[in-house]
């Protein structure tokens, strides 16, 4: 009977064939070369930058050079690192080249008007200089986002499952959902400021609201589209209502629910930044507005950089959670 089944434990992933030695060396030298070029350009434009900026950026480049040599050595004994480097090194090199181009058109040729377009070195210097406030802002944003997102998701799952499963809840709930759901959460800001006791609560409420709509809609659609035959099977196995809802309908709806979670995460980022800019007096959105007010564009870019890292990390975590929870879907759906 063994031949009837595909090997369950062997998951075939396309593994990059070991690169030929010549190719490997060519790939490995890209990063040190890019860093060296960046150093030369930085030396040339040094007189246009502040001493502090030169120092910080110079240290970063030296660090990058040292790291690239260390990793190039280390990969000889570590195949996993080698595979990662072969995959990532061209991208890393391209990023360094982009920074260098940016340096030359800002500090070098001064093609772009200041203070709106600072050089990478001065952005980095702003980042280092303001690290405490930036860290504090990121922490506050994280708290607000986490509070709002989890509140929104929990409420959305409850309403979604109720509306998706129970006909009366659907009858009375759908009109409300259809009417109020599409209003962008940020449009509620005037009301939220009046109604809520604190800025934090109104921020959490707004983010929760923005997450609630997409997650609820996709939970409803997932629950309502549970294959009837799964429910039939479960009923002939002796399942009661609780089993049907929690062990059949909800797992069957999970792929759809996850689409809602991703959409909700996107809208929650937007709402977070707007809420922090308008009402809440802390967080990255607030920092952004504050830095702009002082025309410190280096800090604006620094905050944008932090946001990029912050949001994409959270997105990546949600992807990992999805891969974990929906592991059973392997080979069924790709998105």
């Amino acid at each position, binding site marked *: *009977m*063994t031949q*009837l*089944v*595909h090997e*369950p434990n062997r998951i075939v992933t396309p593994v990059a064939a070991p690169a030929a030695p010549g190719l490997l060396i060519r790939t490995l030298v890209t990063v040190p070369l890019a860093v060296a070029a960046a150093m030369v350009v930085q030396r040339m434009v040094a007189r246009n930058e502040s001493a502090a900026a030169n120092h910080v950026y110079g240290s970063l480049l030296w660090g990058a050079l040292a790291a690239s040599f260390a990793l190039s050595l280390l990969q000889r004994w570590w195949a996993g690192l080698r595979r990662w480097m072969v995959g990532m090194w061209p991208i890393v090199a391209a990023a360094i080249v982009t920074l260098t181009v940016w340096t030359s058109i800002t500090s070098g040729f001064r093609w772009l008007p200041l203070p709106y377009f600072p050089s990478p070195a001065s952005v980095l210097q702003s980042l280092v200089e303001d690290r405490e406030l930036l860290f504090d802002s990121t922490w506050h944003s994280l708290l607000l986002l986490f509070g709002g997102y989890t509140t929104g998701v929990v409420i959305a799952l409850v309403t979604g499952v109720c509306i998706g499963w129970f006909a009366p809840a659907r009858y009375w709930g759908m009109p409300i959902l259809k009417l109020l759901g599409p209003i962008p959460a940020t449009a509620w800001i005037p009301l939220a400021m009046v109604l809520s006791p604190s800025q934090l609560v109104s921020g959490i409420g707004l983010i929760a609201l923005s997450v609630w709509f997409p997650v609820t809609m996709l939970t409803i659609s997932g629950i309502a589209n549970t*294959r009837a*035959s*799964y429910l*039939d*099977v*479960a*009923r*002939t*196995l*002796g*399942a*009661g209502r609780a*089993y049907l809802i929690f*062990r*059949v309908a909800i*797992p*069957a709806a*999970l792929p759809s629910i996850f689409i809602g979670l991703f959409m909700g995460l996107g809208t929650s980022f937007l709402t977070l930044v707007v809420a922090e800019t308008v009402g809440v007096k802390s967080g990255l959105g607030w920092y952004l507005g504050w830095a702009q007010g002082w025309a410190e564009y280096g800090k604006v870019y620094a905050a944008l950089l932090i946001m990029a890292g912050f949001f994409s990390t959270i997105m990546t975590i949600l992807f990992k959670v999805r891969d974990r929870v929906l*592991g*059973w*879907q*392997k*080979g*069924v759906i790709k998105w």
Partner: protein
Amino acid sequence: MVILDEPTTAHEASSLRIREVTKTFVAAENTATSTRALSRVSLNVEAGEFVSLLGPSGCGKSTLLRLVAGLDRPDTGELLIGNVPITGPSAERGLVFQDPNLFPWLTVKRNIQAGLVARGVLHEKRHEVAEFMQLVGLDGFGDAYPHQLSGGMAQRVALARALINHPTVLLMDEPLGALDAFTRMRMQDEVLRLWTLRGMTTILVTHDIDEAIYMSDRIVVMTARPGRIDEIIPVTLERPRQRNHPDFLKLRGEILEHLHFAGQAPAEESP
């Protein structure tokens, strides 16, 4: 294996009586077009008997099976297990579909456990899971997910999942219909082996004449529009049966002829 020694109790209780059952499907958007799926169907199935429902598509054989499972209610007439009317689905009546309908989010082992979990008896009956996996030849596949299984393997899981509740009645709706010819014949022997071991009353819906003859005690031939029983053919061939035995082929010829005749004279179908 403890479970196999356990005799199927309540022989009387697992007999099935279908009395004058009628079922009409009304299209939701147009009430004028309704389909008479079953028209005054009566059938008795004895405890431990293996009966096949044979007929073309649309003859109501799957509808009849869903009524017995309790997933649908008849418009008129009644269905009884022993002396108890069927009012809804029950773990006493296991059901296997053509599509195995395994829960894709559960491993093979957890799919088989589903009935125990649903009835809240997993704790005391956990040991049976391994026995049933062995019974249907799934040893070592407990942690595989349904999408990793071949069609025949998935159908074995579906069988084990239905059997773990010790149903007194096993209902199968073209369970082997999607399998290739060789897997199908092997699975027919598997099902017969399980039926012999466990002695449950079994109703098999099929449109494969060979399968019906090879497996059943009686073949209920149904015709379409409206769905009704055309003829009940007892199969008296000795078990285990031989697919190439002259009597087998003779009976096959008779049924073919009968169905052919039924197909060529539609005037006889609608009174």
